């Protein structure tokens, strides 16, 4: 009988290794036999380094390790990991964290910046601890650069360099070719038609706030449209949904009328703030279309759901309609209901294209070459993944 016991315990431990119990090992009395003799295997590959988040106070150190061999499987199932921190390599120090099994990383918060720390990580099975893995010294620092954002910085700098380079080229008088953008010439045509019919032009700069770059692109186009309208002596109505956009539009239009030599024709009552509320604005603009009957409706800027409300009401009043937005979800409606539509980036291109100011074309050229780079990276990525180089995705992983 006595010989049976070790044999039994051995076979139980083998069985347990093969078919780990669902609960913790501590619940299974038989494994106690084994537990008395050995501690769980130690964790390996422990590393400690400064942890960098986006609001860095230098008070965090990041730890990572490989799980103990007894984590999850095996008779010596790990109950928890214990993380100790000290300021000397051979001290046990202070227990800073106990972590659930399966955890292989931890961020220790609350360290003093600039102080060197040593870490010990032990696997604990409820009775015994594994030998400690040690790492250190690690120092929490207040960093000045978010390294995980390096790819963003590199690509941004490349992009800036190209934009600035082309802008300087243009400023020196180099002729930069830009292909015809369908729909842009329609803007002038539309204003012309309104003049012939003796009816006003309606220009809606979207419902975006002025921090939306689309709104600024729209104000640039507005300045161009206002000049034509001033020359033709056609009234220009600009309804806005944001106070600041309204006051900027006032400045832009007043300036354009002055430049066109008709400062007296500027009517401040035609630049109107209607409402910040989306559909109060939409309803009021529909009212303007029905009652003041503009012959040309231009919708350029950031639009949301009101896009189709404008375009269909405008269609009913038989106005010629040109639209443009970078809000992709609204493009289908403008495309189906308006006469011409500027898609996405064409809106930004339009301000450069219409003003024909060479300096503005630089940005357009820069983003064109950025597109070439992007396409090359994507193609390279496809090829590299096909060749079995999995790192590609990781290079572009940022936080």
């Amino acid at each position, binding site marked *: 009988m006595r010989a049976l016991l070790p044999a039994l315990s051995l076979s139980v431990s083998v069985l347990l290794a093969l078919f780990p119990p669902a609960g913790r090992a501590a619940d299974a009395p038989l494994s106690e036999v084994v537990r008395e003799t050995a501690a769980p295997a130690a964790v390996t590959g422990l590393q400690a380094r400064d942890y960098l*988040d986006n609001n860095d106070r230098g008070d965090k150190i990041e730890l990572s390790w490989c799980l103990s061999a007894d984590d999850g499987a095996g008779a010596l199932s790990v109950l928890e990991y214990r993380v100790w921190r000290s300021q000397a390599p051979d001290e046990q120090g202070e227990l800073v964290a106990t972590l659930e099994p399966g955890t292989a990383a931890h961020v220790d918060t609350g360290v003093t910046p600039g102080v060197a720390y040593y870490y010990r990580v032990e696997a604990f099975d409820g009775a015994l601890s594994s030998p400690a893995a040690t790492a250190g010294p690690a120092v929490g620092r207040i960093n000045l650069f978010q390294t995980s954002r390096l790819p963003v910085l590199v690509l941004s700098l490349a992009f800036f360099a190209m934009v600035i380079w082309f802008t300087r080229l243009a400023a020196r008088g180099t002729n930069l070719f830009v292909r015809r953008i369908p729909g842009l010439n329609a803007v002038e045509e539309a204003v012309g038609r309104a003049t012939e019919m003796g009816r006003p032009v309606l220009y809606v700069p979207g419902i975006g706030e002025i921090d939306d770059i689309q709104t600024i692109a729209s104000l640039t186009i507005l300045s161009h449209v206002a000049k034509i309208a001033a020359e033709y002596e056609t009234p220009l109505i600009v309804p806005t949904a944001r106070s600041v956009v309204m006051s900027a539009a006032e400045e832009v239009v007043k300036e354009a009328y002055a430049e066109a030599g008709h400062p007296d024709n500027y009517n401040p009552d035609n630049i109107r703030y209607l409402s910040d509320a*989306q559909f109060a604005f939409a309803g009021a603009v529909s009212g303007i279309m029905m009652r003041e009957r503009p012959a040309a409706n231009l919708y350029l800027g950031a639009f949301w*759901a009101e896009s189709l409300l404008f375009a269909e009401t405008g269609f009913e009043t038989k106005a010629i309609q040109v639209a443009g937005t970078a809000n992709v979800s609204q493009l289908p409606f403008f495309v189906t209901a308006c006469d011409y539509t500027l898609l996405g980036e064409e809106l930004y291109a339009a301000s450069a294209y219409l003003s024909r100011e060479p300096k503005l074309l630089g940005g357009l050229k820069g983003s064109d070459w950025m597109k070439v780079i992007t396409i090359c990276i994507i193609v390279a990525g496809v090829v590299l993944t096909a060749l079995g180089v999995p790192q590609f995705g990781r290079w572009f992983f940022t936080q």
Partner: protein
Amino acid sequence: MNRLGKFLQIDRRWIFLAILIAVLAPFIWPMGLPIVITKPVQDLYNAVDAIPPNGEPLFISIDYSPSTVPELDPMALAILRHAFSKDIRVAVLTLDPAGYGLAERALEAVAAEFGKERHKDYVFLGFQPGISAVVLGMGINIRNVFPEDAYGTPLSEIPMMEGIRNYDQIPLLITLSGTAVVEAWVIYAHQPYDAQIGAGVTAVMATDYYPFLDTGQLVGMLGGMRGAAEYETLIDRHDAGVRGMDSQSVIHILIIVLIVVGNIAYFGSRKRAPETAGGDAAA
């Protein structure tokens, strides 16, 4: 112009009338068509379901305004009901000034339904302007952006908010929005702080966010009234979402019939009268 050509110029008010009839009829004679659950909805449901009861709260950001109430209110109600029925704590906030009253209305209604207690089971944090600033600020400390709840109680005195500092203690944040606010949550909360973001959006915005589901930037998504109807089916509590689905079917069929009829008329009349109305579909 032949008879078909005239049909193309039909007064659009007849179309409006047809739509009105198509939406009303199923209300009076419901058909009860079955509803299939799609993956983004199931994913969001599972993510909510996985939150432990009476622990770290589910955050719901009611970022919509009155205009999108029909689509998004049923979502808010369904998610709140799901959470409260599982005893999951809920914190509600809004980044849209017009969402204040709506958020309060939805939260109080469902909380009363389940007999939940303010500050113990749920909290209404109110509105803070400056979308990106708030979203980023919550990554550092919620108390910086919401020092107190909507009724002036400091967060430190609210039991359920104890220990809830930033996105690390928020198992899931669901934004319900008809605008680009979802993107702000992704860019300023998921990117820098790795917050888990789920979204409920209007059907039209859903197309914008499919790429975000693919890259894991969004945990799951409800798209439009259909998404709400699916969620209502999942929690087995039919409401406005499910009720409207029959009308949806009928109107969709009506529009398709209109398009087909329009095309038949177009081809029939084209030989004599070239059609000029309508926008140029090519870009």
